[in-house]
């Protein structure tokens, strides 16, 4: 009798210990620095006993981590590349995309900089290095210091496609590890310019420039030239707790509120999942 109670107590204890499942999320800094952590907090606050572990090192790490099996799902600010798709296929797997929200890439300048309106061509010229001084685009004299994300970033690549017509970044651009670092560098430098996800453009000391006279605001999401989708990626269709979380973050009004508060735009029409072909 005694033995039975002891074993059942042990069983109950192990049950309690395993009840808290852990979800590991890896990938994009744009998603992983603010939006996903806040979503997980809200998710936990909604009464889900789940432990989250988030590592945000750039979109490319989303796919390398999923391939290595070190993440339960990934975050990416760009679509999967065909080479990455091949890698999944060769393991008999498939990466499934879920649109997590819409982001605008804001071009930010220092608050004290007189230039607050740029054309798309000027943006391209600045980041490709064709223009090197603010005076060339109607500002006060001062050498432009352009800050970009590092090459593992999805934003780096998306920006090159959206704003720069695929021309390569200029040699004098400085590669920074994350959105926050870019915002920080631009805030500390009158001659700085950079680009960040919309969520980071509201910091003190910086101002988002208008591009082709459209300012990066959620209301302008159809007209702003530099907007893009954000994705969650799972290996195959999501299951269990991961599926629950992703569904919640795509459909729940609470999640939408969190996403909008952070500065992104919650997915409008809730596609359950769109396998990118």
């Amino acid at each position, binding site marked *: 009798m005694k033995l039975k109670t002891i074993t059942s107590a042990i069983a109950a204890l192990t049950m309690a210990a395993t009840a808290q499942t852990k979800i590991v999320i890896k990938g994009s800094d744009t998603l992983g620095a603010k939006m996903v952590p806040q979503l997980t907090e809200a998710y936990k606050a909604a009464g889900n006993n789940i432990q989250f572990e988030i590592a945000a090192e750039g979109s490319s790490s989303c796919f390398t981590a999923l391939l290595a099996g070190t993440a339960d799902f990934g975050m990416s600010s760009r679509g999967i590349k065909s080479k990455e798709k*091949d*890698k999944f296929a060769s393991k008999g797997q498939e990466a499934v995309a879920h649109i997590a929200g819409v982001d605008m890439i804001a071009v930010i300048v220092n608050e004290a900089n007189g230039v607050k309106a740029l054309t798309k061509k000027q943006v391209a010229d600045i980041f490709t290095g064709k223009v090197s001084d603010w005076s060339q685009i109607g500002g006060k*004299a001062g050498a432009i210091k352009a800050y970009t994300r590092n090459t593992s970033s999805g934003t780096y*690549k998306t920006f090159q496609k959206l704003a720069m017509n695929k021309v390569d970044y200029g*040699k004098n651009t400085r590669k920074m590890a994350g959105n926050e670092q870019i915002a920080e560098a631009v805030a*500390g430098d009158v001659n700085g310019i950079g680009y960040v996800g919309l969520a980071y453009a509201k910091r003190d000391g910086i101002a988002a420039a208008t591009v082709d006279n459209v300012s990066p605001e959620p209301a302008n999401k159809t007209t702003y030239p530099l907007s893009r989708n954000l994705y969650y990626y799972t290996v195959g269709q999501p299951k269990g707790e991961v599926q629950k979380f992703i569904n919640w973050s795509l459909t729940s009004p609470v999640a939408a509120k969190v996403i909008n508060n952070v500065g992104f735009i919650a997915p409008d029409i809730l596609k359950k999942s769109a396998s990118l072909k």
Partner: protein
Amino acid sequence: MKDLKPSKPFSNATSRKFLGITKQDFIKYFFGGNATLAVIIIIAIVWFLIHNASTFFPQYQKKLNLYRISGQEILDFYAKENNAVAELSGLCVQAREYEIQDRLGALYRVIPIYSEFKAKSLKKIIGERKELKRAKTALSKIKIKPSVTNTEIKNAEDYLNNCKNSLKKAISAAVNKLDFSQVKNKSWPTDKKYLQPIRDAIVENVTTGKKPQFISDIEAQEAKKIAEIDALPFIQDLIKSKTAFNKPIPAMNTFVEELRIIADKTKAQGNKYNDVPNTKASLEKAISLAKTTEIKQEKQKELNRLYTIEPDYNTFIKPIYASKESYKIHHSALKEAIKSGFSTLPDTSKFQGKAAKAFIKDINDADPAQTLAELNAKVETWKHDEKYSMGQTVKGFFFGTEWTTNSSWQDFYGILPLLTGSVAVAIVALIIAVPFSVGGAIYVNRLASKAEQTFIKPFIEFIQAIPSIVLAFFGYVVLGALIQEYSQSWMFSWIPGFPVEDQYTILNAGLLLALMAVPTIFTLCEDALNNVPKAYNEASLALGATKLQTILKVILPSCASGVIAAILLGFGRIIGETMVVLLVLGGKISIPDSWTASAHSMTGILAQEIGEVNEGSLHWGALFMVALLLFSIALGINYVSQRILNNYSK
């Protein structure tokens, strides 16, 4: 007399044997095995590096061939021609603006300083601003209430006025603390007479929300002065030059842009075709792993869709060959633009500003006609099906000046920017570290008292215990800003490369790395000094030499090899350091042109990019090539320092 018997630590012929091995044998094998293991591990590491790097050159060659056969290469020549002339137009614009800046003096920076100060003082009154906002919303809420008494409204209004007053007080107090010494950019000219108006304008703007009259006046003054300057004949000429340079640029831009789309498509097809074997293998594997027949069929369909015939490059390239005709027109337009632009370019002597003069000099020094002719020759002889040779590929890696990865256009892996960055930092660090560490070692070893020795030595060796990330963090947060600020002082203006324009520079990283190299060099130097026979010192002193003479003429020459080896090992320590250069060097991938510029390093690029690459890809191979090179450099340095020690210390 028992004590005289020699003690034998492990001598025990009659000891127990285990599997035929005595205790002594076991210890022998244990240490021998350790040494062998170390050798095997080193060989394994070298093999691993070479194995992973070996795929790089063939893959890179293939990519470069595709770059050529798709026509991307010739389009880059076109674009370079265009950029060479566009740059001149840009320089003209800069020369005009910097001349204006120089002639306007303090007036030029009044508005930027106003904006900077405003942002600064707004930060100091956040509380008051919030309170005011609250009072305003409270008042508007009260006003729309259906039943509201006059006293309620009056109270709310009073409170609002109170808030306004306290805001005004706070902002006045904040602006009165401002003065021109707080301007971030110390090179901006300032004038005392503008300080009070700027302060008042901020107060006016913050309290009323309107654009202050003073600012409008300044704008008007500026506009008037600029119009005057623009009316000067030589500025007119400059503007003419600028227009002339700029004339053919937009047309050629669109011309190249249109062709780029074609080349990009060809390249995408080529890439797909080149990947077919990989895609095929992975799809076949997917089919074999598929769980349902549906997936199997889907994958089979995908497999059947794969390209099996090589893209017809000869057809795809036709529009690009055809473009050569229009290119000729654009090319001669560019040449014409250069000629007419230079014909009106004013002389340097007419400009007042130093910066403006420098820009005009840059224009004159540039030889765009030469650049154009070179590129034109390349265009003329260019053939899409001429293959890159292995030699060109290898040369492209070791002497390439471009490191462009994850590009949507074309990746280039040229190591020169990274190598020069690493070496430049190491040299700066050594220049700073060597006098301190060698001098310190001499002092501690030869001149210091016992008490000083016991104090200084552990202190210097303690530096080694600081984790490099802590130093890097210090450089990132503190040192960079300090250098940037103080380098703007006139006292340092004679130093080349000053004032420092960036926070994250070779100088900053070099200072931190010097700190890390000091313990290494110091300790090894001290060892070398210790190894000098006592007799040398005593003989020299006995002959009547002073202490200093003895050190400089006798001690140092006799341990020079040790000192050189110490410096070399310090160099090795610096060049392999990662954390500091990753954080503090600025991440700018170009060959540094000054010791206060930003740069990137070999170790930094490895740390930054290795996490993002797919195993076995071209980029992966390139990173392993970098690692291999780094390894060879470290090995070479160690070998040379060992040789120096062995050869000259006899």
